[in-house]
């Protein structure tokens, strides 16, 4: 197992280089290149000013160097091992060695990219930490229910409803949610924007009564997150539920289940003690495909609801054509995605002793 993990970790490197190279090339090859994109944000300029500005941008970000050099220098900057100034990192006297990775500085915000990402990451994580467990529990339960009533009207009905849920576009749900439930013309049950209320800083942490009900910081966040969580969850719910049903049906057809039934065990014990555990395995694989959504998948929801998370950050970086921010953002998201896949593989081996990665 250990050697497998090490092998996989080593394989991360070419994959990461491939992903960032694709994103870098896309930006570099766009008409006019990154310099022109930055200029366009500055509005109209006299030719001389334009030239000065262009030269400055080129000098500052090394945009006049060949693409491959620009890319390699970016790669060197984010890598923890590589060329560095003598006097920092380890070994200190060498020009090559371990150093602290540097995600660079945002073109448009004038701040360190790592700071910006550290601000955005918790928002995305909160969103998913609430959504994933709720989704999983309800989905698995409804999946079991459908599997137990296999072939009956209930099962067919649940199945079609789930395909329907899966087909509803997220953008539509978001727009309708804001339009009907956060609107003074209809009902204003939920806030439209952001993660906190304006007065969130002065709130107590927990809800309490002092001259009427005060909702407090925690409940305020929860209140703001209802819409986004609904929007993210329903599609995943449909997928997991269908999968849970299929997996359970597969297991129920196996010999050991028949043996358990033949022993005279009650249907409940057969289902939950014997079959359920063994049907968990496909669900773990799906968890791996949901983990990447932890950071990037919420892009649409975060944009609609104005949550300052990783997805919104990526979208803003693209809109403002901030290469440094976009590259590092993609880099972080890809690292988390790949680690998610690795985690799923390990979980797979733990849940199913038959799986072995050591060949």
């Amino acid at each position, binding site marked *: 197992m250990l050697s497998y993990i090490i092998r996989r970790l080593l394989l991360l490197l070419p994959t990461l280089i491939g992903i960032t190279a694709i*994103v870098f090339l896309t930006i570099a090859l766009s008409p006019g290149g990154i310099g022109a994109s930055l200029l366009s944000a500055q509005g109209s300029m006299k030719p001389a000013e334009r030239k000065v500005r262009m030269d400055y941008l080129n000098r500052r970000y090394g945009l006049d160097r060949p693409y491959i050099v620009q890319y390699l220098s970016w790669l060197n900057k984010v890598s923890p091992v590589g060329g560095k100034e003598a006097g920092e990192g380890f070994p200190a006297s060498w020009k090559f060695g371990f150093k602290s990775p540097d995600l660079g500085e945002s073109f448009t915000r004038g701040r360190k990219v790592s700071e910006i990402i550290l601000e955005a990451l918790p928002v995305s994580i909160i969103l998913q930490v609430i959504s994933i467990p709720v989704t999983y529990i309800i989905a698995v339960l409804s999946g079991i229910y459908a599997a137990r009533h296999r072939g009956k009207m209930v099962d067919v009905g649940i199945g079609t409803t789930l*395909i329907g849920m899966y*087909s509803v576009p997220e*953008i*539509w749900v978001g727009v309708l949610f804001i*339009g009907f439930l956060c609107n003074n013309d209809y009902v204003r049950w939920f806030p439209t924007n952001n993660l906190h209320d304006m007065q969130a800083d002065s709130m107590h942490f927990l809800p309490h009564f002092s001259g009427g009900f005060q909702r407090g910081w925690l409940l305020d966040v929860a209140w703001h997150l209802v819409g986004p969580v609904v929007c993210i969850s329903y599609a995943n719910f449909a997928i997991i539920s269908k999968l849970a049903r299929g997996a359970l049906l597969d297991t129920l057809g196996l010999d050991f289940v028949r043996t358990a039934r033949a022993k005279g065990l009650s249907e409940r014990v057969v289902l939950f003690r014997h079959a359920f555990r063994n049907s968990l395995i496909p669900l773990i694989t799906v968890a791996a495909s949901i983990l990447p959504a932890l950071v*990037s998948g919420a*892009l649409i929801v975060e944009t609609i609801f104005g949550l300052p998370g990783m997805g919104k950050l990526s979208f803003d970086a693209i809109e403002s054509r901030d290469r440094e921010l976009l590259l590092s953002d993609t880099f972080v998201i890809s690292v988390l995605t790949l680690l998610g896949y690795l985690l799923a593989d390990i979980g797979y081996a733990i849940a199913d002793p038959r799986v072995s990665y050591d060949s």
Partner: protein
Amino acid sequence: MTVSASPMPSAGYEPGDVAPSRGSRSFARQAVVDTLARPSAWFGLVWIGVLVLTSVFAPFIANSFPLFVKQQGHWSSPMLRYLTPADVTWLVAFITVLVLAALRKVAFLTGLAIVLWMVALTLPLTLWPAVIKDGWLPGAEAMGRGTGWAILVTICLGAAAILIGVLLTIRPPKLIIWGLGIFAAVVLLLLICCPIDPPQAIVYEEFRNKEVAGSIESIIRTPIAFSPNDYQRDDHNACLQPPSTKHLMGTEQSGADVFSRMIHASRIALSIGFIATGISVIIGVIIGGLMGYFSGTVDILGMRLIEIFEAIPVLILLLTVCAFFGRNLYLMMLIIGVLSWTGNARFIRAEFLRLRNQDFVQAALAAGLPLRSVIFKHMLPNGITPVLVNTSFGVASAILIESTLSFLGLGLVDEPSWGQLLNQARAGGTGFQWWIATFPGLAIFLTVFSYNLIGEAIRDAIDPRLRKRD
């Protein structure tokens, strides 16, 4: 159904799975029959059929120009005069498909090729009027008039070559087929690079004004009397009207009729799904086929490539491309296809790994057939089933992606699209109008739902494991 046209042996699955009691029907035919036995598949097919009809006949359904009009004693058809190259192309493709379906005996791939050729022939013909009348050239704004001429001449030469090739030889030699294929590829690439609709000076309110002035004797209008880009400059209260008998689904911010825009937008939804999925299937089959056939080093390298593409945050890369390269529908289709081939490659690889040791493949190799023939003629028909089953889901997700891009403001600017309408419902300033939010969203939902239902039905019909359990 795509499955029905090619004679597909049952070798894709173990012999026991296709029960002998099902008679002498081929596997493909049985799959189609089983699929159509499900009501959900019918629901999906009916909705897609409606979409196809609205796409093809959009200018006949929603148009500011009347079908027929009688002025100064004689009849004319302004609607026909203002048909765009895209309108004509859709019509030609539709009629070709109808004719081929009526002939019945044309194989699927041949039929597809014929439809593509008809489209490639129609386009240059429809471009010429604008060139002669207005001096317009395809792509001239972006790349200069010299390039514009070069593009036009290439397109026309390609079309001429096709025409001559088809007319001269009923069964053309291989060289001509390959030459035509390369020409077609060039023509398609050129179309990706430049817009094909020439700009037209259109006065949408022309006939409304004439009617008011009383210079029209009789007029036959289309069911919806507004073009998708008709912003009703003659009506000052046109913007953001709620649904009424005049505008069945209301009007949007700039005063265009929402229903009309929805009808014309069905074209984007239909075409983007099919073309993007087609591209992803082609790439997936080639890469997955090579991986499965050669295995070993090729397989390992291919798997790394697949992993890279699977780990790319798709939406972010798509947004990046659209934001940095400008809005282009064909580019969008290409990118969606290029980013979604990995599933298909995995399927084909697994099938080929299984097939490569089977006797019929060994026999084909021993007979000295070229690799191309072994892979595409012998192995592919036996291994393509899982990919075909999944195309329907691919189409659904491509449509979702397009609407999301348009929603985020990175879709086409002038062309109507469902996602773009939804974006208007969200846009601040004018407040929330329920009719702009509800109808386009419903259309996206129904379309995606239909494709998913069809996909589910096909999968249920084909999946041998499910069949065994019944």
